[in-house]
């Protein structure tokens, strides 16, 4: 008897947790289809806010900035992070100590500290050389910087999970250094690289604080646009953007899962 009450309690707690996590999202999605202007009442289903989005140049430019930033920074971070991850693996027997801490530090560093310091840094460089004026390029550098540790960590843990004699087997089976990369390391890393790319992509798309401090007047991304728009009040348009972003992230996550599983299933 008591046991069943306890079980019911647990079940209730489960639904409560799920509710807290997803109800706000569902409300946002629902109201993005609201026919009325007001966020107070739901008067009927309509796509007018989505149509309105397509007509809003500021939003479209923010969207393209966001995507451009996410794709470029993720690709750059993938290459650099992959090299760092492999380097960490190759030299794992040495005592790397502080070097590892320095690579991981950006993960735990508060975004605001990171963002402000990047901004100060870029401004100084800009004053001295005239290069790196705030804009997409500074944002890409800042995003790559915080994405690298994640990529390096994913690549490193994939390598550590491998039997070390696989590297020797590749050498033993006549693979030249270049062939080892092409036929052993990259194919073995593929699932890790795919998930690292999508993780970087989502982190970049989602980032507000660091983007805010490093962006220029022309390079507002979606989160920055939303933030500035919200100061004038939450419009159903914002709900529509939020819904689209959720969809984008969900699709990225599913694609990442699907791509990394495909190889092992075939």
């Amino acid at each position: 008897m008591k046991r069943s009450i306890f079980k019911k309690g647990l079940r209730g707690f489960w639904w409560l947790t799920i509710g807290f996590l997803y109800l706000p999202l569902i409300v946002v999605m629902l109201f993005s289809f609201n026919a009325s202007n007001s966020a107070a009442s739901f008067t009927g289903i309509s796509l007018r806010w989505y149509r309105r989005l397509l007509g809003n140049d500021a939003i479209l430019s923010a969207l393209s900035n966001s995507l451009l930033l996410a794709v470029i920074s993720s690709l750059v971070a993938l290459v650099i992070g992959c090299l760092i991850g492999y380097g960490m693996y190759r030299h794992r027997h040495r005592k790397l100590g502080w070097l590892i801490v320095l690579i991981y530090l950006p993960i735990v560093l508060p975004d605001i500290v990171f963002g402000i310091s990047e901004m100060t840094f870029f401004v100084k460089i800009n004053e001295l050389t005239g290069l790196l004026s705030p804009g997409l390029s500074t944002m890409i550098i800042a995003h790559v910087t915080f994405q690298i540790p994640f990529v390096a960590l994913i690549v490193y843990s994939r390598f550590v999970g491998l039997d070390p004699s696989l590297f020797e087997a590749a050498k033993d089976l006549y693979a030249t250094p270049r062939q080892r990369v092409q036929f052993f390391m990259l194919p073995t890393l593929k699932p890790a690289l795919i998930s690292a790319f999508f993780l970087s992509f989502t982190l970049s798309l989602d980032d507000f604080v660091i983007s805010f401090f490093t962006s220029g007047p022309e390079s507002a991304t979606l989160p920055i646009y939303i933030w500035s728009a919200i100061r004038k009040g939450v419009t159903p348009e914002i709900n529509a953007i939020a819904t689209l972003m959720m969809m984008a992230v969900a699709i990225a996550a599913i694609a990442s899962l699907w791509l990394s599983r495909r190889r092992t299933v075939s």
Partner: protein
Amino acid sequence: MSDPQMVMDESLQRVEPQESAVGERGERLAASSIEMKGLHKRFGNDAVALNGVDLTIRAGEFFTLLGPSGCGKTTLLRILAGLEEADDGTLIIGGKDVTEEPPHRRSVNTVFQSYALFPHLSVRENLAFGLKMRGVGAQEREAKVAEVANLIQLGELVDRRIDQLSGGQRQRIALARALVCEPDVLLLDEPLSALDAGLRSQLQVELLRVQKRLGMTFVFVTHDQQEAMVMSDRIAVLNGGNIQQIGSPREIYETPINVFVARFMGHDNLYAITEREGCRVTTPVGTLELEGGSEGEFVLIRPETLDLKLGHVAGTNHLPGRITERLYRGSHAEYRIAIGATSLQATVNNRGHHLPDVGDEVTLVVSSEDLVTLSE
């Protein structure tokens, strides 16, 4: 495993694999000898792995490096493969100095202890990997993979994924992946140690069959002296980075050169010689008459060379004692016999006669020619 008779017939059909290998490639011999001169290897500052190893392995030989862990046998194998560089010394394989060659430029393949099969590739792709890296065309690769799959009897597995294979199957694939490259020398690093006893002895037979059929030089590393004796043409026993003894399994087992080799080969009946008077020596188990010319500070009495007689009988090389332990093994029985303050092991074949029991007074009889003397 399939019918052994069939396996024999099959091997008779392809009598001369050496010739076919030479015929196809022309430029190289089927089997190569290995020459090691003064190989030294040290890890860090203190650990000496190899202490000046000189060793010649003949072409087409099944050669075993035997020793306890840390004796340097795996280091030696890794130097042969090129995965480790010797600090000093020369390595010649098939008449060519390969001391400085990286592993991918040596015609040597390894069967790794962990098998090291590529998890991202199918069995077929694993088998073809070495050929592909060498630039062998797709058609020839396909043919060679099919041939080796047939040789190792794993034709039905080639389209599987690696994680769908059992331990024994993985072992076979690892062997096939190395063999398909037709290397001058095949190196095997404890390839059977992860398998259970039954599968292990089955694969021992299979490995031996493949080696004899291909006539390839095999260098095998193991810490299991039984396995070494079953498989090898010759064995090198290593300890502390030094070769202790090189010889056929019979030489190593029956006439070990020193106490380490004797103990490692499983011998317990080793007694220090306390007094020597011509051929007569005194040991803790009694006075023994040795053959002329034997030298050394220890005498080895192999348990299976002893005869057991009931009661106390006097005579040369007759040792009186009392049975303290009997292990009945079916085909034979193992006895422990107390002689004075020490004891001796004896093995008696079970021919259906009376087997003496614990507590019986017995006399152990050994002939002089079966006694082996050895040094510290």
